[in-house]
C-alpha cells in the first residue's frame, strides 16, 4: 500500500529528504478528489485591514459617532492591552462612502476602486473570525493553523500534499513587498513560511527583489557560466564515482539536486525578467509594477509563477496595522494594493489562468469599531478585532460574485454564517482537491493537520 505513492512523495518536495529522516507512514495520498485549482496565490495583508473602511459598510454608525460601544455588543469580550486602559470605547464610523458594485451588488468602499471591477469575480466573506487578538499569534494562526510556533505553513502543507509541477522552480514561493519609503510595519517571521515538523524541503523559498532573487543564486564575479558548469561537472563525476563505490542512493540524489540548482540559475532569472511583459500589462498592474520589490510587481511575478506551474505563491504586504491616523494610512495602503490585487485577478482571467488558480486576499484579523486614541471628525484609529473581518477568494473552485456572512450594526459580532480561520484553510485545500481531514503528517505520535481537529468547508463559497 505504501509503494505506489512513496516514491512520488519522496521526491515531490523541492529537493529530497534523506531516507533516514523519513517516517514511513508520512505519505501524502492527496489529491483526494479532482482539483478545481492547481495553484494558490495568497495575498496576505499583514497588520489587519479595517473591514469597516473597506468591505463591511455600516452607514447607520454615523448616528452613534462618539458614543461608547454598548455593553450589549461588546459582551465582555477581551480587548488588547492597547485599548483596555481607555476610559471609553467611542464608536468611529467610517469616513468613506460605500456603494454597490458589479452585477453582484457587492458593497465596497470608494477607496478601493479597482476592487469594484472584480466584484463579479470574487467571493467576499464578511464573517471571518479568529481566536487571537495580537499580531504574532493571529498571523501564525492564519498561516499555520495554530497560534504558537512550530506548525507547518499552509504553503508547506500544500507542497507536501501535492508536490510541484515545475522541476526547475520551487513549489512554494514567498515574496514580501518592500515599500518605496522606510518600513516601520509589523514584523514577519520565517515561521510563517516554514515547514514546521515537515521536512524542510517543503518550506517556502523567498524570492527577493534585486540581483540575487533566490539566496546564493548568482555565481560570484569572475566566474563564467562555463566555469560554473565545469566545476559542477567535476563534482558530479567525482560524486558518481563515489556513488559507485559506496552504493548510497543519496549521492545520486545529490547529483540531481546540483543539476537542479544549475537549472535554477537560468529559470529564476527568466522568471524575474519582466522585459517581455507588455506595456498594457504594466499599465494593468499600475505604475508601481516597474519598481522591484513593490507589491504590484510581486503580483505580476505571482502570475508568472503560476503560469510556470508553481503550486503556492505567498505574498505579504505590510502596513495595515492602523492604530492611529487610519483614514490617512489606509488610503496609502489602498493605493499600493488595490490596483495590483484586482489586476492580478483580471490578468489571470484574461489569460485563462483564473479557473486553475485560487486567489486569496486577507489579513490576520479585523479592526474595532471603537476608536483607539483621540476621535475627531476627520481622524481615528482602530485596535485589533478578532471577532469579524473580511476576506475574499477568487478563481478555481470559487463561486464568483458571492457574498457570505453578515455582522451586526457595529461590525463587532457576526450575526450570520460565521467562517472560522480553519474553515478558510479547509476550503483552500478543498479547491486543490485535498480533504483537510486527510492531509496528515505523523509527528510525535500524532497525525497532525493544518486545521488541527477543526475546520468546515465554506460550501456557499464553492462553485
Amino acid at each position, binding site marked *: 500500500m505504501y*509503494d505506489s505513492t*512513496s516514491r512520488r512523495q519522496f521526491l515531490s518536495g523541492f529537493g529530497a*529528504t534523506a531516507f533516514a529522516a523519513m517516517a514511513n507512514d508520512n505519505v501524502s495520498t492527496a489529491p483526494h478528489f479532482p482539483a478545481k485549482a492547481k495553484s494558490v496565490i495568497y495575498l496576505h495583508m499583514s497588520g489587519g485591514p479595517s473591514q469597516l473602511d473597506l468591505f463591511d459598510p455600516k452607514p447607520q454608525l454615523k448616528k452613534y459617532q462618539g458614543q461608547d460601544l454598548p455593553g450589549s455588543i461588546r459582551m465582555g469580550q477581551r480587548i488588547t492591552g492597547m485599548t483596555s486602559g481607555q476610559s471609553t470605547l467611542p464608536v468611529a464610523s467610517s469616513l468613506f462612502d460605500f456603494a454597490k458594485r458589479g452585477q453582484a451588488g457587492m458593497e465596497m468602499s470608494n477607496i478601493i476602486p479597482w476592487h469594484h471591477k472584480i466584484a463579479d469575480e470574487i467571493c467576499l466573506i464578511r464573517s471571518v473570525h479568529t481566536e487571537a487578538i495580537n499580531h504574532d499569534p493571529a498571523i501564525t494562526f492564519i498561516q499555520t493553523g495554530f497560534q504558537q510556533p512550530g506548525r507547518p505553513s499552509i504553503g508547506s502543507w500544500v507542497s507536501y500534499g501535492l508536490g510541484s509541477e515545475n522541476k526547475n522552480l520551487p513549489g512554494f514561493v514567498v515574496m514580501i513587498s518592500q515599500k518605496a519609503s522606510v518600513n516601520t510595519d509589523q514584523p514577519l517571521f520565517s*515561521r510563517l513560511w516554514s515547514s514546521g515538523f515537515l*521536512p524542510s524541503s517543503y518550506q517556502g523559498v523567498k524570492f527577493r527583489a534585486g540581483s540575487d532573487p533566490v539566496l546564493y543564486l548568482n555565481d560570484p*564575479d569572475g566566474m563564467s557560466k562555463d566555469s560554473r558548469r565545469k566545476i559542477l561537472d567535476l*563534482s558530479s563525476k*567525482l560524486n558518481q564515482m563515489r556513488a559507485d563505490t559506496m552504493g548510497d542512493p543519496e549521492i545520486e540524489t545529490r547529483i540531481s539536486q546540483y543539476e537542479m540548482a544549475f537549472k535554477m540559475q537560468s529559470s529564476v532569472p527568466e522568471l524575474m525578467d519582466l522585459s517581455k511583459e507588455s506595456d498594457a500589462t504594466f499599465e494593468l498592474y499600475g505604475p508601481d509594477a516597474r519598481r522591484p520589490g513593490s507589491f504590484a510587481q510581486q503580483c505580476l511575478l505571482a502570475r508568472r509563477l503560476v503560469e510556470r506551474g508553481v503550486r503556492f505563491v505567498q505574498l505579504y504586504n505590510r502596513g495595515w496595522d492602523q492604530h492611529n491616523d487610519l483614514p490617512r494610512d489606509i488610503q*496609502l495602503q489602498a493605493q499600493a494594493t488595490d490596483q495590483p490585487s484586482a489586476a492580478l485577478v483580471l490578468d489571470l482571467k484574461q489569460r485563462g489562468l483564473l479557473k486553475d488558480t485560487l486567489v486569496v486576499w486577507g489579513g490576520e484579523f479585523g479592526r474595532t469599531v471603537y476608536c483607539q486614541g483621540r476621535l475627531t471628525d476627520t481622524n481615528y484609529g482602530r485596535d485589533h478585532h478578532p471577532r469579524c473581518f473580511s476576506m475574499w477568494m477568487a478563481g478555481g473552485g470559487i463561486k464568483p460574485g458571492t457574498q457570505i456572512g453578515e455582522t451586526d450594526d457595529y461590525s463587532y459580532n457576526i450575526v450570520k454564517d460565521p467562517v472560522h480561520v480553519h474553515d478558510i484553510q479547509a476550503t483552500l485545500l478543498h479547491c486543490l482537491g485535498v480533504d483537510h481531514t486527510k492531509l496528515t503528517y505523523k509527528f510525535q505520535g500524532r497525525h497532525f493537520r493544518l486545521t488541527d481537529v477543526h475546520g468546515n468547508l465554506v460550501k456557499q463559497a464553492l462553485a
Partner: protein
Amino acid sequence: MRFLLMSMVATGLFAAGKPVDFLREIRPILSDACFQCHGPDESTRMANLRLDQKESALAKITQIAARVGETKPGRKMPPAHAKVRLNAAQVGLIQKWASEGGAWQEHWSFVAPKRAEPPAVRLKAWPKGNLDRFVLVRLEQENLKPSPEADKPTLLRRLSLDLTGLPPTPQEIDAFLNDKTAGAYEKQVDRLLASPRFGEKMALHWLDLARYADTHGYHIDSHRDMWPWRDWLIGAFNRNMPYDQFTIWQLAGDMLPNATREQIAASGFNRNHVINYEGGAIPEEYQAEYVIDRVEATGTTWLGLTVGCARCHDHKYDPIAQKDFYRLFAFFNNIEEKGLDGQKGNAAPFLKLPTDTQATLEKEMTQAIAAREKRIEDAKIADRMAEWEKTKLSKMSAPARNGLAAHYELEGNFNEATGTYLHGRYLGLPPTASDGPVGQSALLDTGARIEIPEPNGFNEDAAFSLAFWFRGGNKLEPLTILTKKNGAGIEIGNDEVFSIGDLRRGAHLVITLTDAAGGKRVYQSKRPFPYNEFTHFTLNHQGAGAIELRMNGEAEELAVSGETKPMGIRNGAPIVFAQMIGSLDDLRIYNRELSAAEARQLAIEEPVRYLLFHTGIKRSKAQAAMLRDYYLKHDSGDELKSLYARLNQLKAEKKQLDEQIPSTMVMKELEKPRESNILKRGQYDQKGERVEVATPSFLPPMPSSLPRNRLGLAQWLVSKEHPLTARVAVNRFWAMYFGNGFVKTVEDFGSQGEAPSHPELLDALAMDFIESGWDLKKLQKQIVMSATYRQSARVTPELKERDPENRLLARMSRFRIQAELVRDNALAVSGLLNGEIGGRSVSPYQPPGLWEEVAYGAQFSAQRYEQSHGKDLYRRGMYSFWKRTLPPASLAIFDAPDREKCVARRATTNTPLQALALWNDTTYLEAARKLAERSIREAGADPAKRLKHMFRLATARYPSATEMKLLQASLDGQMAEYKASPEAARKLTTTGESKIEASDTVELAAWMSVASAILNLDEVLTKE
C-alpha cells in the same frame, strides 16, 4: 516495497511461526487504530471501552478479534469514519493474539529496563563487546553479515566528526596510520574525548533540545544573552559532568542548597524559551505559554514523551491525563517572571555575571550613588526648588530676536512665529504633535514633505545660523533632515545609525555644502549624538562655506572633506523636509552667527524658561526631572552642585560598567508559589480545577524523601528506577552516531513511538549508563569502540534493498553532517577556522537585507544585521547569532531549526538550495580560496602534489588515479580560462575579507575553482 520492508523490520515479521509479541506486534496496532476512541482520553471514549488497560481489553478480546475481522460496514472496526484502516496482516495478528489467549505486557518504555544476557552468536570473532553481540544476533537472525571495518582514514574522520565536529588534520591521520599498536584506535578515541571540541560537539545537539537562541522570538524578536549558559553547557560536557547532576543543575540548579553562580546559570535551560512583548498582548496568556513550553521541552528531553498532547485534553495514546500535564505545569509555574518582558535584553529573572573586580566595583558604586542621592534628598530639594521657581523666571530672558529671520515653534504646525507669514507648506502629510524640549515638537514620518519659504532677506553667502532640536526616528539608514538646495546649497542629515550598548543608538551629523560649480564639502561631527534623544544643534555659517557646530550648546569638532576653496552656496530655495523620519522642535533661522552663550541659552535655558513661563502646563515626569536637573546643575549652590556633578559622573560610570557585565537568564522561585489550575482546552483564561505538583501516575512514584518542587522533579527524573531518562538519553546519543536511534522517534517513547529495533541492547546501554554513575564520556566511548560503529558505510545492493534505513546495523550509516558542521568543516580544511570556544555570538557573512525586510523597526535591538569582521567571521557555526524569526540563512538551508521549540531530531534534506549556498555563499567561496592558498603553500610547486593535498585535506584520503585525472583536467581547463581573463581571476579571488596570500591571482583563481568543486563533494558533506 521499501517502506513495507521497513515496517516489517520494526514489527518483527521476519520471525514467523513464533507466538505473537504483544509489545512489538499488537500494542502498536491497538495504539494506532483503537486508542483514539478506546484509550486514555475519557472525553472521547466510546462504548465505555478501554483497550490500553489489561483488564478491560482482555475481557473483550474475543469481540475485538471478531470486530476487526468484520466485513459489514456498520460492524467493522475501526469504523468507516476513522482515518485508520487495518490491513489483512494486522487483522491476522490481532486474531492470532486472541487465539493464543491474549498475552499482555505494559508498554515497554514505562517499565524499568531489564538486563538481558548477552546472546550467543555464531560469528564469535566479530564482537568487541556485549554491544556487538546484541547487534550481531539480530543480523544472524536475518541471515546478514556485518560489514568489514572501515579503513583507517575513514574511521578517523568519522570519529573526529562525531566527537569533535571537526575533520582530522593530515598529521593526525598520518599519526594514526603509522600507529600499528593494538591500542591505536582507542588512543584516538581517548584523544578526541579529551579535546575541548568534544564539549562543543555535544553542546551543539543539546542546543536544539534547549531551543537556544540569541533573540526572544515571537513578535519583536530582539536580542537576549544566553551565551553564558551555552558556555556553561560546553564546559559541563568537557568536564564530563555526570548526566544526573547535569540534569539537576539544568532543571533546578537554582534550588540547590547554597547554589553557586554556576548552578544558577545552568538552570537557564528552561529560560531559553521564546518570550513576547508585543504591544497589547496579554501577560497572563504568555506567562502560561512559557510554563507550557517548559513542560514540553522537559518532557521531550528527559522523558521522551509528547506530554504537550495533554495540554488540551487527556492524551489519546499514552496514560497522561490532562491533570497530569498541569501537575507538571505546577512545577514550572513559580518563576519570578513577567508575561511580557525582554525589551531591554534579558528578561527577569536573570543573573549578572561580573568578575570579582567588577562585582566589588559595582557594589562600591551603588553605595556611593545611594549615599549622594540621600544627601541631596536630605537637603530638601523640593522646598528649595519651590522657592527658586518664584524668582527664577524673572532672571531669565527670551532668546535674542535680532537677526531672527524665521522661527518655527512647531506646536503641532509649521507656522512662522515672528509674524512674517512665511508658514511651512505641507505637500505630504502634516506632522504629529508630541512632547518636545520646548512645548510640543513635530513628529514627521515617511509621508512627510514640508517646505518652508526662504526667509526674507536671507543670504547663504553671508553669515547665518540654523538652530533646532532633532530626535531620530526608526530609520537606520542615513537620513536627510533638511535641505535648502537648488543645485547649490546646504543639506543636513546623519550617517548610518549604529548601536551604542543594547538599546541606545547614535549617529554623526553630516552637513553637505554644494556650490554653484558642483563642488562639494562635507562636514561630519567627530562624536556621535544620541539618536533616540533630543539633541540641540546650532549650526553657524561664517560665510564662504565655513561651518561651526554646537551640540547641546557645546562646541563640536567637525571632520571636513572635499572642496577646500571658499564656497558660494547661495540658492534661493525653500527649506525642505522630505521623508524626514524623526522629530523637530524650535527651529530658528538667524541672519547672523549665534554666539556660544546664545547657543547654550537655546539648548539649556530655553526649555526651562518655557516651563516656568507656561505655569498652566501640568508637568510630565520628564519635564519635572528636567527642571530638577537644571536646578541642581546651575542654581543649587556650590556644595550641592559639586555633589550632583559627582553623582552624575558616578551614574555614567556605573552604566558603563553595567553594560560590560554579562548576564544570563535563570530560574528563580517565587516566594509564594503561583496557583496552578487545569486550563480547559489549554486556554490560559479557562481555569479549571486547582492542581498541586505531582509526577504522572503511570511512572514510578516520587519518593517521599524528595521535595515537592522542581528540584524534587529533577531528582526523580534521575532516580535509578526511572524507566525513561537513561533510555531516552542513550537512544539520542545513538542516533547522533547512527542517524537513527533504536527508537527512531527519539522524541516519542510512548505508544505512538516506534518500538525499539534492539530493545535488549537499548536496555543494556541504559543500565550501563546508570551504573557508570551517568558517565557521559564512558557511554560515548562504549559506542565508538564497538565493532558495530567501526563498520564500513558501504551499502551492498542487498542491504540497500533489505534495509535502506540501516535499522539492522549491518553497516555504518552514511549521512550528511548537520548544518553547523558543514560550515565548520569548510572553515577547518581551508585553515580559516577561528577555534575560540564560547563567548558572545557572532554575525558571519549573510546576504544583505534579510533581517531588515521582515523586522519591526529601529527602536528594538537585533532588527538589523550588523555583520562581524576579522576573526569573528570564522567562528564555528554554533556561535552564529541565532535570530529566531530569521535564523542564519546558510544554516537554515541545511535544516538548522529556528529554535522556537524544543527539537529532538533534525531532518536531513538534500536540496538545490544547498548546492547554491555551497557554491556562492561568501563563506564557502572564501573557504575555497583559502583551501587553494593552503594547498599551494603547503604542497610545493608540483600540481599533482597540490591536488592530492587539497583532496586529502577535504576528504581525509588520497584521490584515486581516475579521480586525479579528472581533477587535473579540470584544473588545466580553469587555468586556461583564467589566463585568458586575468580580470575575472582578480574579481573571483577578492571574495571574502581575508587577505589574499598568493601573488599569482590567475593561478589562484584556477585552484580556487577546483577547491570549490571539492568542497561541494557529497563525500565532504557526509560522514562515511
